[in-house]
């Protein structure tokens, strides 16, 4: 059977992907740059920047001289690579055999697939339209050989559909670089006046080999279809899924538990082998009357422990309604992460602590109370009390800065400061007494003020002057005055209680 290939060229893959992530970049000229031999060099320029004459390989300093308002972002090669892989996986809807052609191309083996779209023309049109609607500048071409399709997609804007056997005709008009030659060879060809492939296509092979090496002949043969070319199709990851059909409809909790355990054992065995753990699992029960029952669990760290996952599910098994019976169980792990083999040692600060046991406990608590009930705090370098701590979701993250104890901080902090009425003798002195919740507190001792300014780069507002005061009963409070004394009297608030 005559083979047909499609070569796709995503001419601005890296910059288009950035625009998709940050739509506000669409109207600005920007380039992606990376350091090279001690200077920043443009690795990719978006279409706006290209219009200004900027191109890949230019030094950023030169580009800035031409175009001062140029935006320069860091190049992330692994990001582009990942995008290409994802697009390749997405292209599986067009053909089962898709290969990536780094840095910015895809190769599709469309043999025998095009009739489903009603012809090669419609097939190519649909592919291009879908990719362009995602936001990628795309060119594509279909031909009998990969090399020809590749050359046409990149060097021949007019043609896109090369009829069977038409490689030689179309290649004749293209420059030698379209044959994917090494930079040195194509340069030498240019020097010798071979501007078109047609000029040397018919030359004796021995002459070409002597002048330009075997590589040129191989490439030429590949393009013309005299030798085959091998592509390595991507293999999409098999989903983490296990199925268990039952011979007879299952109706009891004990039987469901038995089935669940079997599924978990199979799934966890695979996860453990791949050094992965699941963060989320979904058990779907197909009932014989056509209804579907589902229960879901989440874990706070990747887990592949049958016992632990089973216990999490056990809390929810009661919510399954088997009715007339269940004849198929399906266990999915939609979220799977790599397990960190060093995690345990990081967590194990004292001998008695067993990280896994605590993580499992937290999973049980979140399974019942909701995902967001577990909080852990790390210090942040802010004086503003509400911003002095940050919530973290990881159990292993360590503080970057030390916890401060140089200033008094109350043991109980009100979620929002509450308004109090005070009697203060003179500005910048602590008040003599204050009224809070209809009780008057006479102040016996006071410390302060500790002025904390609002951080203007985060929020606007007045500063706070904090006082630590003790009333006649010995209770200690943290109160503050908002703003300075000027024409209007400032308000006072209570913010916390000292031990």
């Amino acid at each position, binding site marked *: 059977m005559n083979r047909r290939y499609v070569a796709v060229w995503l001419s601005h893959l890296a910059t288009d992907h950035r625009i998709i992530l940050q739509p506000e970049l669409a109207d600005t000229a920007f380039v992606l740059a990376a350091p090279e031999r001690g200077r920043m060099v443009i690795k990719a320029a978006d279409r706006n920047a290209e219009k200004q004459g900027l191109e890949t390989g230019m030094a950023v300093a030169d580009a800035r001289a031409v175009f001062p308002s140029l935006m320069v972002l860091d190049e992330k090669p692994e990001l582009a690579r990942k995008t290409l892989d994802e697009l390749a996986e997405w292209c599986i809807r067009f053909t089962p055999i898709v290969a990536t052609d780094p840095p910015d191309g895809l190769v599709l083996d469309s043999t025998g697939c095009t009739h489903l779209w009603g012809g090669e023309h419609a097939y190519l049109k649909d592919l291009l339209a879908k990719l362009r609607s995602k936001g990628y500048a795309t060119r594509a071409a279909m031909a009998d050989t990969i090399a020809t399709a590749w050359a046409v997609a990149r060097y021949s804007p007019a043609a896109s559909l090369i009829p069977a056997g038409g490689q030689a005709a179309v290649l004749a008009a293209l420059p030698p670089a379209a044959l994917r030659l090494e930079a040195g060879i194509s340069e030498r060809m240019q020097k010798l006046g071979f501007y078109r492939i047609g000029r040397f296509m018919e030359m004796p092979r021995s002459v070409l080999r002597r002048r330009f090496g075997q590589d040129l002949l191989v490439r030429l043969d590949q393009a013309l279809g005299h030798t085959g070319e091998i592509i390595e199709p991507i293999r999409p990851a098999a989903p983490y899924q296990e199925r268990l059909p039952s011979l007879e409809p299952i109706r009891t909790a004990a039987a469901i538990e038995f089935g669940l355990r079997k599924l978990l054992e199979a799934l966890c065995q695979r996860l453990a082998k791949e050094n992965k753990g699941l963060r989320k699992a979904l058990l779907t029960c197909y009932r014989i009357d056509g209804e579907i029952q589902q229960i879901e669990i989440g874990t706070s760290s990747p887990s592949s422990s049958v016992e632990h996952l089973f216990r999490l599910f056990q809390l929810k098994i009661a919510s399954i309604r088997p009715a007339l019976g269940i004849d198929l169980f399906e266990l999915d792990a939609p979220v799977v992460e790599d397990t960190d083999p060093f995690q345990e040692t990081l967590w194990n600060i004292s001998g008695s602590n067993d990280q896994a*046991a605590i993580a499992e406990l937290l999973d049980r608590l979140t399974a019942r109370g909701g995902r967001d009930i577990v909080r852990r705090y790390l*210090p942040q370098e802010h004086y503003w009390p509400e911003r002095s701590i940050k919530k973290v979701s990881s159990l292993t993250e360590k503080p970057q800065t030390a916890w401060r104890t140089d200033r008094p901080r109350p043991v109980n902090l009100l979620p929002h400061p509450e308004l109090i009425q005070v009697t203060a003798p003179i500005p910048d002195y602590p008040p003599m007494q204050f009224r809070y919740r209809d009780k008057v507190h006479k102040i016996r*001792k006071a*410390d302060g003020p500790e002025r904390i300014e609002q951080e203007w780069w985060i929020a606007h507002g007045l500063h706070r002057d904090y006082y630590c005061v003790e009333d006649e*009963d010995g209770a200690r409070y943290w109160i503050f005055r908002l703003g300075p004394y000027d024409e209007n009297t400032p308000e006072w608030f209570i913010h916390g209680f000292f031990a």
Partner: protein
Amino acid sequence: MGQGVMRMAILQKLRQDILAMEGFRMPAENQRVHLGLDSIEEVFPNRVFPTGVIHEFISTEREDAAATSGFMCALLGRLMHRGGLCLWISRNRTLFPPALKFFGIDPDNVIFIDVKSEKDLLWMIEEALSCEALSAVVGEIKDISLTGSRRLQLAVEQSRVTGLLHRISPRNLMNTASVARWKISPLASELEEGLPGVGYARWNVRLERVRNGETGCWQLQWTDHFSRPALPAEQAAVLKTG
């Protein structure tokens, strides 16, 4: 005479056995928790601050709650001084994590569970107390029934985790299975004469009930350890002249 000594020894042994049956286990010397205050420790059975049991703290006013939180943090610091992690389970928590550092606890070693419904609170505390990997569990709960507290006590007898229950303005003070019940209220701080400002935290600590021990009442000051405050200046003066 010899018979008498033997009887005493038997009685002592029996007492120890009874204590052990009731859930007091004599901790190994290296696992003992020292409060640093002999006068408090001697009221407890075996003269050791009981760990692996439930301590209950009662407070009504917000000021008392703050003092109680402070005292609990101080105890927690002692319980966690060999490292380890603690769970702080509460609803409408007001504890300000950086304050823990003042009591010798690294706030990042405390995991807070902010429960959304009162119903789940007891279940979560029980579940946490059964986890041997934790150093201590703090639960802030309003009311707890005798049965509920018994469940917690059974959980800690298995796991040997110390539980501190803070009951903020409880509706009723029914009997519970907790080993000790404390009540803490703030006391006016003292500074050396003539110095302005607020001094160290000072509390009136009342041990209202302790199983197989004696009750007591102390005035304590927290700097970075417990201490008995010196007598107030006036009293000292009275003593001197009198």
